[in-house]
Structure formats: C-alpha cells, structure tokens
C-alpha cells in the first residue's frame, strides 16, 4: 500500500508515463471514452443552470448580487470539489480541511491552492494515519466544528472503519442527542481508476451501508460533485463523500460559480423510460449510457445477441447519488412502472449495495416485477491489476443484463 502510494506520487513515475507516448498523454485517471461525449454532462451554461434540484444558497446573503445572471465555468470534478471546499472555507470560519498531502493539492488535486488561500492553520497535511485522522476529525466535529477530512483513497478507509462506524455513526444515539458530529465530512476517492489494482480501485460504499447515522454520497459529475459536497458539508449528520477517481479529470461540465446545494437522499432520473429501470451511481453511469446506445444500435459484434424487438425498449436510467439513506421511493416508483430492474455497481456482488436494493425492491414491487432483479457488478474477487478491465462491469455486460431481463 505504501509503496504504491509513493509510486503514484513520484515525479519519476509520471515522467515515465509522459515519455511512454508521443501524443497527448492519457489522463492520470485513465480513459473512459464515453465520458468525453456524454449527453448527461451539462456542457452549456443554460443546461447547467437547469440542473434539477439545484438550490441557490446565497439568497439571504446581503452581499450577493441578486438579479444578475448566474455565471458558470468549465470545470472537471476535481476543480468542482475544490470550488466547493473553497466556498465552505470562505463561509464557515470553523471549517478546516485536512488529510494526507492535501496542503500540496492532494493526489487528485482537489485541494490545489487552498492552503495558500486559507492558511496552513485551516488546510493542512496529516501524517499517514487513517484511523487517527478519522478519530481526530470526529473529536473536532464533536466540538461543533466543520471537519472536512480526506482519506486519500477509499481503499485506505478500513483502518478508520471503527471510528466511522462506532463513533461517527453512533455518537448522537449513544449520547441521547447530547452530542453529534454533524460537522464531519469524510471525502475519499473511490471506484476503479483503470490501473489501480487491489488497493486503489475498490468501491467500499457497501461496507458502510449498515451504519445508520452515517450518510454516503457518490456524485457522477462536476455539477453534482459541487452541489452534493456542499450539502454533505452542511448536512447535520456525518457524511462519507466518495468521489469516483476516474471522473476527476474526464468528466467536464459548465459548473455554476455561486454557492448551491443538491439534495441528499434523493436519486435523479437521468433518462425516463417505461420498460426497464437501470440503476447505478458514480462511474458506471457512463458505462450505462454507452450500454443504452448499444442496446438501441448494437455494433456488429454483438448485434446477433440483441433481438430486434428489444432495441426500441425504453430504459429508465436512475443515478442513485445517495447510498445511505437511499431513495427507495424513487426506485420503487420506477420499477412499479417498468417491472424490471438492473442494478450496476463496481463493488463485488455478494452483500454489495445491489443486494440490499434487490431485496427491498422485490419486497415493494413483488407483484409488478416481470423479471428477477439483475445485478451487474464486479466479481467476488479482489480487484486485481491485470484483470481490472475484466473486473469492472462494462457496457457489454450491462447490455447483456438488460437483454436477459427484458426477454425473461
């Protein structure tokens, strides 16, 4: 774990990468081709300002210039995260950002320049000490402060598991409401990166799903990242905010410059449909987008496996966004209309988030289901380096699952 961390940051490693290709270097996070052209990313100001659920947070601010057109700026996910952190630090004197190497900008550049802008007292590096970081952050938050801690990779969150599950999630309950750590937000990069391997490509959201008292949020894009992160920071409950690594650079949108939030605990329907509900969050959103195209216009290689009758199927695509508490209402309402559910996530299948969703949906929608709930997930193996592309559910597997479910 340590060795690979060092490698990831070492200038030599990046130099090697740079020299290995004569053309434009690939982004550090790897390629995800469909992201660049995704229709779900809001590439114009008008589209960005029409983001569903967007709530401006400066309407009571006497200094805000009301009535003037809202501005947007082109940002990727890490810039949007940085923008959100900057707003949080500006508006809340008790907000503090800390984590491993974050004062230099962090391994994914989410905190670039924050230390210079807000001072080393408020934006600082910690030792490599995940359990300590979590406990320290919980202590701060229990004093009523806004602790925004980074765990450098979600894969490293396990030493902090006790603190998050036993302290952060439970302190309100076990103190009868006398104490809480509502000011706590743990940011952590999650999901596959294309070449992360065992300890840099995991998706641990499911492990936290039973920890009532916590909230778990995973954004899919820059607009979502900024709005959901500001909501998470201000939510009066401890939140684990997981940022999909591969999207840091590859997902680009016009992001509103002002302070806004997006609702926690609410899924968003990206594509309305009537024949099958496709539910996912984070990176696989874009695999699903590709899969929807493939289903409608299957390329030659898979056309024979996609019956003509299914190509016009209307698929409803939902981004779950909040894993805990998850928006069962929206999902159940959708499945009651479509009768079919396919859940896609990167973590392994056994006891993954999809298991809980499948169980709840079959209970709520049993008589409306036309096919068993299907899960498209990582395999129940470690995320092994050489097999990563094979491990991660891709568009073809999603198409296959939709075909199987539609023709059940």
């Amino acid at each position, binding site marked *: 774990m340590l060795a690979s961390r060092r490698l990831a940051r070492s200038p030599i490693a990046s130099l090697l990468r740079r020299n290995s290709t004569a053309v434009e270097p690939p982004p550090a996070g790897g390629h995800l081709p469909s992201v660049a052209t995704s229709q779900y990313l809001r590439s114009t100001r008008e589209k960005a300002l029409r983001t569903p659920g967007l709530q401006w947070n400066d309407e009571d601010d006497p200094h805000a210039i009301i009535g003037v057109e809202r501005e947007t700026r082109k940002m990727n996910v890490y810039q949007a995260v940085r923008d959100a952190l900057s707003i949080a630090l500006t508006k809340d004197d008790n907000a503090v950002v800390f984590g491993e190497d974050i004062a230099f900008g962090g391994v994914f550049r989410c905190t670039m320049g924050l230390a210079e802008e807000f001072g080393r007292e408020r934006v600082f590096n910690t030792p490599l000490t995940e*359990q*300590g970081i979590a*406990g320290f952050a919980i202590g*701060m938050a*229990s004093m009523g402060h806004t602790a925004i801690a980074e765990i450098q990779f979600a894969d490293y969150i396990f030493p902090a598991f006790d603190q998050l599950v036993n302290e952060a999630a439970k302190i*309100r309950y076990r*103190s009868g409401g006398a104490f809480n750590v509502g000011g706590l937000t743990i940011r952590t990069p999650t999901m596959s990166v294309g070449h992360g391997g065992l300890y840099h490509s995991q998706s641990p959201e499911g492990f936290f799903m039973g920890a*009532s008292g916590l*909230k778990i949020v995973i954004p899919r894009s820059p607009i979502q990242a900024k709005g959901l992160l500001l909501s998470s920071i201000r939510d009066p409950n401890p939140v684990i905010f997981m940022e999909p690594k591969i999207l840091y650079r590859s997902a680009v949108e016009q992001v509103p410059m002002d302070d806004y939030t997006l609702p926690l*605990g609410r899924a968003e329907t990206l594509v309305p449909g009537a024949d099958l509900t496709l539910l996912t969050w984070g990176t696989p959103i874009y695999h699903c987008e590709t899969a929807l195209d493939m289903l409608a216009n299957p390329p030659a290689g898979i056309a024979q496996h996609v019956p003509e009758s299914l190509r016009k199927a209307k698929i409803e695509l939902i981004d779950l966004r909040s894993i805990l508490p998850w928006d069962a209402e929206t999902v159940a309402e959708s499945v009651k209309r479509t009768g079919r559910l396919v859940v896609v996530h990167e973590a392994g299948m056994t006891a993954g988030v999809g298991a809980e969703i499948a169980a709840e949906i079959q209970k709520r929608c049993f008589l409306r289901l036309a096919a068993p709930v299907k899960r498209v997930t990582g395999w129940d193996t470690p995320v092994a380096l050489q097999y990563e592309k094979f491990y991660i559910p891709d568009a073809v597997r999603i198409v296959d699952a939709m075909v199987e479910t539609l023709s059940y």
Partner: protein
Amino acid sequence: MASLARLRVSRRLPQLARGIQTSADTTQLHSKPEDLSQPLTLRLNEDSFHTYNCDMPELDVKVTKNQLLEMYKKMQTMRRMEMAADALYKSKLIRGFCHLAIGQEAVSVGLEEGITREDRVITSYRCHPLAVLRGGTIKGVISELLGRQDGMSNGKGGSMHIFTPSFFGGNGIVGAQVPLGAGVAFTQKYLNQDTTTFALYGDGAANQGQVFESFNMAKLWDLPVVFVCENNKYGMGTSAERSSSNTEYYTRGDKIPGLQVNGMDIVATLQAVRYARNWTAIEKKGPLLLEFVTYRYGGHSMSDPGTTYRTREEVQRMRSTQDPIRGLQRYIEEWGLASEQELKQLDKEAKAAVDEAVEEAKKSPEPATADLWTDIYYKGTEPPFMRGREREEVHYY
C-alpha cells in the same frame, strides 16, 4: 545479559531504580495556617513522581482544608455510587456491560479538582465518576445504567455512554477516545482558548495503534492535550508486564514528555493535574503524558470476578494499605482538620445521597418505544422511515 541490561539502565536513569510510590499516606503536613480558610502547605513524598523529559512538579502543594474535605466526600460518594451499581447489577436491574472504578477514585476526583469547567475530558468505558464530577448527577448515571429515561443519555447509551457538555463521554471501544481527544484539543487551540483536553485511557488501551497515532499528531501540532494513562495494572485479565514491552507508560510518548504519578494519593494526583494543565493550557508547551499508577479492586467488568489472574491477597493488600480514601482520611485526622465523627458524618451523607438517587432512578420509566428510532439522524434529515417488527410498528419520521 538481562541483569547487565538492567544495571546499565539503572545507572543511566537512577530515578527508575526505585519504584513509584503508591502509598496513600506518605504526604506530610508542612505548614498549617492559623486561619483554616487559608491554604495548608503539604509536602509530597519525592517518589510520588517520576519524570520523562520534564521537570518534576513542586513537592510542596497548597490546598485548603475545605478542598480536602470536599475531595474526601466526593471520593466517598463515587465509591458509594459504584458499590450501588454493583448491587444493582447483581440484582439484575442493570443489564449489559458495567465497569466500576472502585479503587481509582483519586484519579477522577483529583482530576476534576485540578481543572476548570472549560477544560474538556474524554475517557474510556470506566466513566461513571467523571460523568458525575463533570456536571452530571448520580441519579443521571444510575438511571443510565438502569436504562431509564432520566439517564444522562435518556437511557439509550448505558454504562459506557454518559456525557456532559464538558465531558465527551466514556467509550466502548478500547482506545478509540484518544484521537477524539486530540481533535477536541485541536479545536481549543484553533479557537485560541486557554483550555486543555484530558484524554484518559488505560494500560490496556496503551497498546492500541490509534493511541500512538494520536501522540504523533498531538506532538506534531503541539495540541493542548494531556494523555492520561490510568494504569490500574491489568488490561482486562492481562497484567501490564504480560502485555507491554515497556510498562513505563509515561515514557511511551516518544517526544512527548511524561510524568508518572502516585495515583493512590489524591494530593499527588491533584498536583500532577495542576502541573499538566499549566503545561498545556497556560504555558502552551504542547501535549503531556500523565501516568497514574492506581489499582482497581473489582474485576475488569461485572462478568469478571477479578481473582483469576491475581491473588485475593494482592487485592486485599492494596485495599488495606494503599486505599486512596483511607489515605486522605488519615491525613485529615492526623493534621487535625476534622474529627473521625465529622468524617463519619460525611460518609453518611454520601451514602444517603447515593441511596436517594438510586430510589429516584428506579422510579424513572424506561425509554419510550418511539425513541428507539430517534437520535439516529438529525431531526428532519432522516430517511422516510425505519423498519419495525411489523407493519404497524414501522417508524415514519
């Protein structure tokens, strides 16, 4: 080889050659004012402290007669309360886990005497006395143990989960409170407060990784935190010698200076706490490690008789020769501050206060069924509902 090593150590660190004094009756009266509202000067035994990279606290301690009597009464009350908890547990009125601090009263009472209400304290599961001393009530603690609404956590926490505004609770996970203490201290520093945080843990927890993680962060950022190791010589059923390669817990902070203290003499604990508070909150010299050498008379928890890993004689010897309450009682009588009768009266008052609190606690109702589902998320931000046993019992927020 082993003896050679010991020789070398003893030559380099001569003060280690003698063990820490844990008698509760070696403090001398140095001077007594005519007017007893003025402080007395007491002289501690020089083996009350061992130091690690710091100066020894003054051996002369100023303390008033009233303070001594108050501390006596508090210790006696805390012991009575723990004994009442013991009885309630044995009569099956308290269920679950329950860890008593009988024998360790000089630590909690001495700590509270030496700090202010603005200071913060966080400790392990052996937390009942501190919960009362930091602004709680005996009734609140006993009710919590009984799982009643009048409990300080509304009956929803239990023995290990009792809080006051300046007391961040007991904690059920061994050592997990220590990094929280560092975070609390960071906030005090951030707010430019002249206050400090006392983060208590036991000799068992001293071997937890996160305790060392906290030491490192605290020293790195010079946080106003006092790490307090309550060394009662046994981590559950394993003695310090069997669990720790270095049993001098006050030296385990590496660059953090440390002070080992006779935790059975409340005058010594008070002086050490004053020293530590001054070090962290006033002189702002960064963190400090305090080790109170103390002893628990009972088992680790109620399910441990406490006699399988140590002899009854050992417990008996500690009780009869080094008891902190009896030690203070002797001081008070010898120095002519109160008569035996007057102290007996304080004992009676302590017992009466506890008895009354127990009776009141017993009358308190159990938490309402609906409260099973409250305090999970902030009100108004919960999921739409939480499951109950049956359809009618599903809790909608």
